[in-house]
């Protein structure tokens, strides 16, 4: 008898002032928010890199800046239109466009590991050598198609800057940082000169031979600075490692 009265009272109470306990959820969200804000990058430069390249690790603290993106991508397997995996040869991409394609790897350079325990086929491993097709490299060592594309991209960047409305133009500063002024003493608005920065995203297995050809071609196309993109590795103690 006693128990039934108590139960009824309790039930009535729950119905009357039931509230979801939000404090613990708030605690969790605040912790999550603090973590996300701490690890959030405030870099103004956003760019995408290819998912098919494995970047080397570096302890360098410098963040990438704006520039033209060049990707050296190794051969890889990707799903074709019919859903089957097909071999995509390695290539040099400039601003997302495939400019130069390498020779596809020889059958001996593709190793298919045995299927896993669940019967699923493992991803084939490719030993890529980045051989150029004939006539891609000129007699002077330039990668001809890449040179043409770099010059075009450079001209495009200059054209865009030149044709910007006056209000959108930036002030051009002299070498000492001062603003050049016209006869009336107003700062001169002029197109920003081409910055000549080439951002190179290369797979860690790429050999210097290829990298040198790319840099030589870019230098010939008036690119003055190269930025080698790497994965940031805070724990790297380069001096303790051997390579």
């Amino acid at each position: 008898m006693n128990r039934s009265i108590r139960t009824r009272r309790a039930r009535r109470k729950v119905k009357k002032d039931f509230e979801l306990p939000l404090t613990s959820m708030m605690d969790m969200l605040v912790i999550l928010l603090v973590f996300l804000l701490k690890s959030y990058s405030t870099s103004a430069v956003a760019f995408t890199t290819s998912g098919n390249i494995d970047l080397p690790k570096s302890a360098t603290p410098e963040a990438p800046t704006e520039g033209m993106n060049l990707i050296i991508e190794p051969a890889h397997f990707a799903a074709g239109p019919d859903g089957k995996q097909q071999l995509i040869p390695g290539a040099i991409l400039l601003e997302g466009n495939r400019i130069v394609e390498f020779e596809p790897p020889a059958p001996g350079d593709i190793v298919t590991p045995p299927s896993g325990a669940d019967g699923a086929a493992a991803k084939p491993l490719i030993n890529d050598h980045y051989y150029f097709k004939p006539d891609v490299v000129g007699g002077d060592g330039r990668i001809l198609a890449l040179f043409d594309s770099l010059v075009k991209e450079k001209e495009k960047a200059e054209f865009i800057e030149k044709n910007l409305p006056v209000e959108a133009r930036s002030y051009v500063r002299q070498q000492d940082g001062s603003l050049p002024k016209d006869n009336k003493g107003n700062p001169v608005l002029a197109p920003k000169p081409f910055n000549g920065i080439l951002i190179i995203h290369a797979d860690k297995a790429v050999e210097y031979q290829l990298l040198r050809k790319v840099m030589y071609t870019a230098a010939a196309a008036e690119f003055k600075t190269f930025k080698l993109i790497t994965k940031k590795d805070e724990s790297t103690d380069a001096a303790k490692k051997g390579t």
Partner: protein
Amino acid sequence: MLRRPSARRKTESQELVINLVPMLDALVTLVSFLLMTMGYMAISAIETPAPMLAPPDDQVKELEKPKEPPLQLTAEFERDNTILLHDWMGSRVNFKVSPKDDPSEPGKKIFDVEEFHKKLIEVKGKYPKETQLILKPSPGVSYENLVTLMDSGRYFEKTDVVPENVREELAKARAQALAKLEQAKKEGKLLSMAIPGENELFSNVIFGNILSNE
């Protein structure tokens, strides 16, 4: 006569409940925005300028000529994983860093990055004003090895003992750069220049054999 209000009535006053729902809404929105826009891979960039041909000697102004000829510290990474470290003439700096055994693969030789780094610290101790390192890798050196070697040449490690004269020189260069920036700011000029870091070894890395056909 009025009766003193009982203590019991006081405790019966209503509990103050903060309305957490709008705050929760804001937090959920903020967390989802941060999760959506977050970059999951931290990326860094190693800057290296393209080598340029120097102007003829007679065109360089007499005033601009340094009193001491530049060191032109050069590191050659050979095909057999040997590193040759020398200056322009090989008279002031001349080291050979032999390859070491790969601990993970017996019989395989790898670059001895640790020894290379030690030699660079030694050179920096002798020439604290030098900031440039010219790299001449052989064609077969992989990009991954190059980045590791560049890393070891560009910065002091946390565990390194930085020579006192190098520490002083770095602090001086830093102070000079900051003073220059401050001066430009006062004059209303916007100057963009790199401030030397406190742990820089040979921060200016240049590939010296891009233009050659070796």
